[in-house]
């Protein structure tokens, strides 16, 4: 039974009991979605059938999850432990740990390595085959976000620092950068075309940056305001919590605490589309690999008396080219 929330959108059943921290589609199909939550579970959903296929636990809130391959999920969070779970056999494997909560879990297909970032100021690499730790690398600050771009890793930390690492050669930092934005970094995601990355902050602003350090390329970078609402003539500024790229078009969606999802065309510098407002803050976004589906996690917030209480929800939306493809002039 699907609760349609739009002509091309429905809400997933059996959503977690507490806030959703991350949603990720399976790498080779839009059928499966992995969801991590503050209710300490990681769940796997069969999206078209709208059922929960599997659920496993951590001992603390789970802050991020990722697929290594279609049958293995990795996750980490407040219990400091990095777990790998075989989705076919339902077997769990405690791979390792950090010294502080694990904030990000990602996979790099080009180098075949799992990457985790933590508030203990380190990034750790893991060999998914054994599985075991393949190195610990200090960052200047707590890791808030990270993204894989080809064989490179872009790490966003507290203090507005951004570091670019070469995953094949972690002996030194390839690039030390600073966020172009004035405030705390919220999310970084790399362009599928590996040219650069998008960085969002708590200040309703997004920056598009390029990896090539040469001045001609660096000149192309820009930033824009978004996810701001005017109330009583005063602009209210919301953090932009989530970014997800459409793999084919290289356009990206952003989600903010204002409850809106916008899709942007970075080449023409236009907004392609804005969806209806979701009941509450957008915590995470994920495009499926083929770009046909967008998962939107809108997470529970307690409301004041005079306003209704929205629930957590994961909304699955079929997106069209009109919404995601850059307009050709």
């Amino acid at each position, binding site marked *: 039974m699907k609760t349609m929330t739009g002509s091309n959108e429905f809400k997933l059943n059996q959503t977690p009991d507490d806030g959703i921290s991350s949603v990720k589609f399976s790498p080779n199909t839009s059928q499966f979605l992995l969801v991590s939550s503050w209710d300490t579970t990681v769940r796997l959903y069969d999206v078209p059938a709208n059922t929960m296929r599997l659920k496993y636990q951590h001992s603390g809130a789970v802050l991020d999850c990722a697929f290594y391959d279609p049958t293995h999920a990795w996750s980490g969070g407040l219990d400091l432990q990095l777990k790998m779970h075989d989705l076919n056999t339902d077997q769990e494997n405690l791979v390792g740990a950090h010294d502080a909560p694990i904030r990000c879990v990602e996979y790099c297909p080009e180098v075949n390595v799992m990457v985790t970032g933590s508030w203990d100021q380190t990034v750790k690499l893991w060999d998914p085959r054994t599985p075991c730790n393949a190195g610990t690398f200090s960052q*200047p600050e707590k890791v*808030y976000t990270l993204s894989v771009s080809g064989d490179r890793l872009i790490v966003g930390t507290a203090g507005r620092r951004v570091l670019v690492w070469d995953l094949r050669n972690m002996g030194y930092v390839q690039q030390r950068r600073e966020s172009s934005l004035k*405030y705390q970094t919220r999310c970084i995601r790399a362009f599928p075309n590996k040219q650069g990355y998008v960085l969002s902050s708590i200040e309703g602003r997004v920056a598009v940056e390029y990896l090539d350090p040469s001045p001609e390329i660096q000149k192309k970078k820009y930033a824009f305001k978004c996810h701001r609402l005017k109330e009583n003539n005063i602009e209210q500024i919301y953090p932009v919590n989530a970014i997800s790229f459409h793999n084919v078009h290289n356009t990206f969606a952003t989600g903010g605490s204002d409850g809106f999802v916008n899709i942007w065309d970075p080449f023409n510098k236009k907004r392609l589309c804005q969806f209806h407002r979701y009941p509450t803050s957008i915590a995470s976004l994920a495009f499926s690999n083929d770009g046909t589906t967008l998962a939107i996690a809108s997470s529970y917030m307690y409301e004041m008396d005079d306003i209704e209480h929205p629930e957590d929800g994961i909304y699955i939306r079929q997106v069209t080219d009109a919404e995601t493809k850059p307009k050709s002039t």
Partner: protein
Amino acid sequence: MGVCQFFLRGYCRFGERCWNEHPRGAAGRPGPPPAHGTSGRGGGWGASNQRYSNVIQPSSFRSDTWGGSRDHGRGFFGSSDFGSSGGSSRNADFSQNRFSALASSQSVADGSKDEEERLLECVVKDMEIWESSGQWIFSCYSPMKEKPNVSGFSDVSPEELRVEYYDSRANNIVGNYIDAVQTLAVQWKNRLLQLKGLNASTKASLLSAFKATGTQAAPAFGMGGQQTSGFGLSSFPVSSSSTSASNFSFKASSSLISAAPSGSSPAAGSSSAAANPPAFGTASSPSTAQSVGFGSPATPSAASFSFRAASTAGAFGTSGFSGFGSASAGSSASSPAAAFGAFGATVAPSGSPSSGALFGQGGGAAAHPVTSASAAAANASPASDKLFTPKSELSAEEWQQFEAKEFTIGRIPLKPPPVELLNAFDLVSLFRSNMF
């Protein structure tokens, strides 16, 4: 509570309702100023509008719906961000962002003086916006690219704050958590006001900090080059991820739960080079600390300021604290209000037991001005170091104050509120409303 700057210019839109002081004899033109709404301006914020639109009195800004404005209609999203061109003017040249404007000015020979002024103006403007926009307050800040982060602001991400809250809830010490957050919010506000007001010494220290590019600048409070980390709040040892005890640590920038290199004590942990010195916003101006702490008229505004007025968002928390703000603004129940007032009142008393550690923990050079502030704070607060005052110890008048919707200026109790009037559950859920 400070003197109302707008009133001094003859321009305060709140008139008698204004929470700041309107000294008689300094009034200029009477009557409300012309509407400087930004209605005609799309998403943009012209500089002039910002200066007058940031004084928010919670009670007058109830938000009902958010139906409102779609910011940025279709089309160019470059609006309003390019240097001085506010408004939705369409800049043809999108390669120009505010940073490139700066780059060109730096190459001008005598541009350095202008650059400094521009920088300072930028800081002031940013502070004004930060104050009024409900933006997340626990964030570092740098006015321009390649300038180091301004000291006094530390990063705490929303997830980290939520973790603290969950931990405190699990250990039934939400009160501690609320106090900790309130203290941090106060520190933020003080630092913000300092930067907004920009007196000579703040200016000087800011400029010297900016000149020291390349190294992390020395903190602006003369705290030596110490890169102390963490909010002073973490006078309680560590470990928030385990469900430890009555103490919880509120680590901010980089002291971490048994972070690898630094070992267990937060003070030791501070040696890990933090990008930002802690938010000892109160340090440099002991008088500020005092006015915040002592249930003086400063308190109500201190308590309410950090929370975005009216809650816009009913549904949408941004800065983690709109929930609290709206509690005081809208709610008719007395308990949230009392609890709210409690924040102000408790800043001093609950601050005091930890304040020794709190301030003392700041690195070596830390501090003279700091310790005197904390000493002053500690001495002046007569209340015990309990978190709540038993009803039996409160005078009738104090009880009345706590029960009232708002404190009466001049009669704000110096003791912490009684636990009976503090409804932690309300606060807890209000807080949660902003976490996701």
